[in-house]
């Protein structure tokens, strides 16, 4: 009996020693790059002109994408008002690619945009800061598939029904393994802070004990979108709506407006932070939550990877047209109206914080490749 008791007492120790002997590896978590799909940002057909930025110069991009839809909700016109703000003193030569039909100077621009096949060109000297604004009209068939929302308008007796669907959902390859709950909780808190602050997710690693497994079925993630707007018909009351599509909530919803005649729609969509999925249960932080009540590490990891993928996808939709500076801060707002696409004024982002580091992004990408390659080798030998 004593022997048995000793044996039972030793078992956990033996298991712990075994776990300690297990190989640990640092695995790169999703973000800030690469994006899950090639576009957005849009890509044009021509050969992209040389890009030159004096070292130390940074370019921020603010876009307002105006989408005109027809009577069924299908895009019929797409225009982007893109404002690039060059920060720093020196020469710049930039090009922005896309399926571009026409380009003209935007409001407040301090320079004239050039236009070549599928390219907007900017060249000049920034004395400290420079605003470059262009109104870019896009060819609808190649640009429409990359819009973040699908609209569907249907006529019904006495009114019209609008179905709005988040079209950013895409499959991504996730991974699983044995992780340390405290570390993952800490990373969840960091990611949550970035999300709430509207900052680009920063590169991060997690420690895996033993092998990293790739689930057979990819995970579907989306860029959460906040959609605000109003639908009205002549003779009827306007119907206002405000929803978040994604972040654990449905990816589509319907609104119905009473009346007759041509529907009028005023809809604004922008990426929303991941809030619901990153809310710690019963505590202010994830670290506090797991101290209060254990949460399975696999669940924590799944939440972390899913949230980071969503933030990366959100970041991707901040540049419908590319920011020529990969390190620049970008923002995009999408307006949908029935009829022609008429852009509103673009709000230029403040450069007081956020952003990321090009070198860091490059290192993370390289790191991802190395880790993925290492993982593949380890998996092949396991």
């Amino acid at each position, binding site marked *: 009996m004593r022997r048995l008791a000793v044996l039972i007492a030793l078992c956990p120790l033996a298991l712990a020693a075994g776990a300690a002997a297990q190989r640990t590896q640092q695995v790169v978590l999703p973000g800030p790059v690469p994006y899950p799909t090639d576009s957005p940002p849009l890509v044009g057909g*021509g050969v992209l*002109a*040389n890009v*030159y930025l*004096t070292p130390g110069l940074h370019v921020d991009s603010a876009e307002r994408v105006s989408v005109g839809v027809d009577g069924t909700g299908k895009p019929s016109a797409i225009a982007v008002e893109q404002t690039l703000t060059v920060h720093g*003193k*020196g*020469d710049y*030569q930039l090009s922005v690619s896309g399926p571009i039909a026409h*380009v*003209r100077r935007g409001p407040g621009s301090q*320079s*004239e*945009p*050039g*236009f*070549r*096949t599928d390219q907007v*060109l900017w*060249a*000049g*000297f920034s*004395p*400290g800061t420079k605003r470059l604004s262009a109104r870019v009209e896009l060819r609808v068939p190649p640009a429409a598939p990359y819009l973040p929302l699908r609209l569907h308008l249907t006529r019904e007796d006495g009114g019209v029904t609008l179905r709005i669907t988040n079209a950013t959902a895409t499959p991504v390859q996730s991974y699983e393994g044995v992780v340390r709950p405290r570390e993952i909780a800490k990373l969840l808190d960091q990611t949550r802070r970035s999300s709430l602050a509207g900052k680009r997710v920063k590169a991060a690693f997690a420690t895996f004990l033993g092998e990293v497994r790739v689930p057979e079925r990819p995970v579907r993630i989306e860029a959460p979108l906040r959609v605000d707007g109003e639908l009205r018909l002549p003779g009827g009351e306007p119907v206002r709506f405000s929803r978040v599509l994604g972040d654990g909530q449905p990816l589509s919803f319907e609104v119905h407006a009473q009346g007759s005649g041509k529907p009028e729609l005023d809809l604004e969509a922008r990426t929303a932070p991941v809030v619901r999925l990153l809310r710690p249960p019963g505590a202010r932080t994830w670290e506090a939550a797991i101290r209060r009540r254990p949460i399975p590490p696999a669940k924590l990891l799944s939440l972390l990877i899913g949230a980071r993928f969503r933030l990366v996808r959100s970041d991707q939709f901040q540049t419908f047209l590319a920011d020529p500076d990969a390190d620049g801060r970008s923002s995009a707002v999408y307006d949908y109206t029935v009829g022609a696409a008429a852009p509103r004024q673009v709000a230029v982002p403040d450069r007081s914080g956020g952003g990321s580091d090009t070198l860091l992004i490059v290192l993370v990408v390289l790191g991802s490749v190395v880790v993925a390659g290492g993982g593949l080798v380890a998996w092949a030998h396991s």
Partner: protein
Amino acid sequence: MRRALLLLACVAVLAAGCGKSSRSSGGDVVIAVDVPVTGSPYVAQNIRHGVALAANNLNSGGGIIVGTHSYHLKVKLYDNHLSARQAVEDTRRALDAGAVAMVTDGTGIDATWQLANREHVPICITYDGGSGLVDIAKRPNVFRIAPTNHGIAFRYAEYLIPKGFKVGLLHDDSAYGQEGAADVNRAFSENPRSVAVRLTLPFGATDLSPQILRAKRAGATALLVWAQPPTIAAVLTAARSIGWNVPVYTSPTGSDPFIRQQLADHPSWVDGLTFAGGRLTAEIGTGPFQAFESQYESTYGTDKVGVKTAGGQPVIQPPELAMYAYDFTHVLVAALTRAGSLDASKVLSALNEVTTQGANGDERGFNRNNHEGVVDDDVYFARFHDMTYAPVKDDPLSSTLPVIPQTP
């Protein structure tokens, strides 16, 4: 016998196979240069040399390849005598000679562009910065590689107004002076308080004392002179001879050797003269421009100004105008290559889609929205001291630019 014939046939086939593949020669591609050889020889010579230098370089490398043929560039020179009527005649002759493009100082462009446009032949201005000469909607075949009056005028406004000057805006009554004055007036129109007086000076007058005195009495604390070189020299003479050391700013003509030649006996009168121009160097440094300059000088010799520094060194003029003509020739060749044909409309269209590296290291090219090869941002200011000039230090762009050596 049959064996010998078979052997010969094999040798012939092998010889054909080993032969160096070469494109068939298509002959000459003519570039017409229409410049005021007898009206403004310095400008004419620089433009002509720029085109010829580029053509010689390309020809010495075996010519240019357009589609399946190789061609040699041939430069045909016409003298427009600074006369629009002569420019029209020159354009007709150039088109008859099959020119694929014309390079001009800008003389008579208001009349010549239509003739060339009928044949879809591009014209490139490499000197005159007048507004309206290049209009992408109305004149789709007109291009320019030279600083624009509009760009220079607005750069002057943003440079001078913050200094708190009361500026005397002076121009002569030449076409050049009047065109520039229109842009200067527009640029200063939003700040009328910074303008002390506006005066028109008679072109060719050697004594401008009454006008300069008037500017002084109007309270001018700086003069911005848009005029031909003799007028600028006369303004300096009038101001300095009465002891008025007012800062003088000028159009790009301020760098013309004529002014220094005229004032060679009073080099201190030239000191401080500031002119605007297109930057000669890119951010990457002086290397590319000096390489071009050295090539230019080894072919044509140095452009001597005809004055010396206080140390006795002869002063030479950097080949700025030649650089613009040289660059256009390269852009044209890039367009010919892209078009893959000598079809004029295809070449004209291709000119909107190509970029080459200019002689100063900057990218040079046009696009569908803009036929200006020198962007307004590239206008810099340089100030004379001891008969040579250097970029000013109190302008963000100019302060980043290195000094181009102007003595041997």
